[in-house]
């Protein structure tokens, strides 16, 4: 399947867009609140499990479970934001790291307790299986679908941020939350809604990603580095940066594992350190 460069590139792009949809919420909330949240992957896992359970226990078709994944993760996000996260916006980064690691541990243990430690299966609908021929290249139908969903989501997100009143409030709060509050924007509410939205997108990504990333209780730990990387390389608070970073990461990871499998994940870690050296504030970061 990965017989050539184009195939590797395509898979990399699919992988990258998945990383993007999961991480974009983290990027925006980090830019907005300067909160180092290592538990973002837990929301993606929640979305993934929502999908799997709805499919296996309630017999809901795959595509219909995706909105549910969004809603469940967003609801969990807003509950945690109002009860816990909110209190730590002014705390030190160390406290935030410890708090979110604690959340990850609890999520991993609770998921293992309820659903067991094994990989969760996903049954894709028939039309998303197998190969499709596009421009003379055989590509996985599901990966094509994945890229399509992410393109649509990105356009919606972009329009929302650029064209709507709420989007303007978010951008203003990212730029300067104190001045925004002074202008009458309810920054607190903007924080809450944005956090819920970001968690929801992570949940959607978690559901979409079961077939590509797999789904088991260690999911938030396993992919934590990747989600953080998208934010750190892209620069917190920008959609464009996150997209570019996610695509770079996705392509490099897939290409590295395909062409030089013997050095494993080394490439991605090396890339991470090198990029952080060159761009300490991220590719599109505005603040240092």
């Amino acid at each position, binding site marked *: 399947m990965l017989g050539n460069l184009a195939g590797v590139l395509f898979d990399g792009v699919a992988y990258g867009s998945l990383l993007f949809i999961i991480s974009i919420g983290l990027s925006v909330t980090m830019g907005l609140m300067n909160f180092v949240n290592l538990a973002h992957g837990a929301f993606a896992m929640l979305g993934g499990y929502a999908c799997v359970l709805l499919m296996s226990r309630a017999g809901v078709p795959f595509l219909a479970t995706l909105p549910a994944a969004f809603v469940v993760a967003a609801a969990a996000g807003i509950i945690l934001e109002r009860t816990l996260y909110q209190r730590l916006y002014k705390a030190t980064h160390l406290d935030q790291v410890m708090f979110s*690691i604690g959340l990850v541990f609890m999520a991993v243990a609770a998921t293992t307790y309820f659903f067991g430690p094994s990989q969760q299966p996903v049954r894709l609908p028939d039309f998303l299986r197998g190969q499709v021929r596009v421009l003379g290249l055989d590509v996985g139908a599901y990966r094509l679908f994945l890229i399509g969903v992410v393109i649509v989501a990105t356009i919606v997100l972009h329009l929302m941020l650029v064209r709507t009143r709420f989007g303007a409030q978010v951008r203003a709060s990212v730029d300067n939350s104190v001045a925004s509050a002074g202008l009458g924007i309810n920054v607190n509410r903007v924080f809450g809604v944005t956090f819920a939205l970001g968690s929801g997108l992570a949940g959607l990504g978690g559901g979409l990603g079961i077939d590509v990333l797999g789904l088991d209780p260690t999911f938030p730990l396993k992919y934590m580095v990747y989600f*953080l990387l998208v934010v750190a390389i892209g620069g917190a608070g920008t959609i464009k940066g996150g997209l570019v970073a996610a695509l770079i990461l996705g392509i490099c990871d897939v290409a590295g594992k395909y062409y030089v499998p013997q050095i494993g994940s080394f490439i991605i870690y090396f890339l991470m350190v090198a990029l952080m050296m060159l761009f*300490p504030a991220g590719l599109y970061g505005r603040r240092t």
Partner: protein
Amino acid sequence: MNPSGNSATPAPVAAIVPRLPNDRWRAIEFAFWLLPVAAFFLFPSYRVLGSQILITGLFAVTLDLILGYAGIVSLGHAAFFGVGAYVAGLLAAHGWGEPFSGLAVAGAAGALVGFATSVLVVRGSDLARLMVTMGVGLMLFEVANQIPSVTGGADGLSGVTMDKVFGIFPFDLTGSTAYVYSLGVLFVLFVIARRIVNSPFGLSLRAVRENVRRMPAIGAPVTRRLTAIYTISAAMAGVAGGLLAQTTQFVGLDVFGFPRSADLMIMLVLGGTGRLYGGLVGATVFMIAHSYLSDLNPVYWQFWLGLLLVVVVMSARGGILGALEVLAHRFRSKRR
């Protein structure tokens, strides 16, 4: 015992007098160091666990140097621990079994790697530091994993044979030698660390932590200070890793693992940062709780650990020692 002038001080909040921290050893510190000695005689069957606690405690103290004093948030401190462990292990496996010189080489290797990577760490935001430290740790993990001919790969490095300490005491299965050896090394390095943080240099580190912008303005070279403490901390972490390799006579890939770095941070925060003793207390509580609870069920352990972290962050700032200080303060002000 207590310096009599202390209790007679009229107001606890006095005018800030610029002076160095008091470096004199307090009675409670002497009492604290008697505890591991007492434990050696009271719990002879737990000496193996005891030496592990001492080593982990030392490791936590090294993290406190950069985290609690200089304010560098690191999720990859295991990198230096692992380098020290593999260096000491490889030395011993290839015929150099003398323990103290092995530790010195392990410390030097840790310092070397620490100095080389400090360039990446001392600049940049907390997020960038977090990523870079984690990245360095994961990279070294991959390296050790990929060269099994040297490191033994996933099977670990075995065949580590140690000479007798001072040519007299062999490392035995009861862990007696390991315990005393670890305690001695821990104490010496702790005294050094304590001296460092109470020096003008240590004070300047705290100033960097409190206000990194103002330090250059008063003429302090922030980058050089951070590089220095990062290297020192890495060297000590290397020694801690070497200790583990020598006392267990085995090195596994997990010395580089992310869980080791994360657990370390948890111990330190649990005990209380910026106190040196916090690392020792945190490591002791953590290791004992871990050895009891994870025997029951590893998954439960992780859940309660997570909950504990959330609660500690939400309520008890400063960890166990911070909470004790608050209690002691209340007690004292009530008596007055």
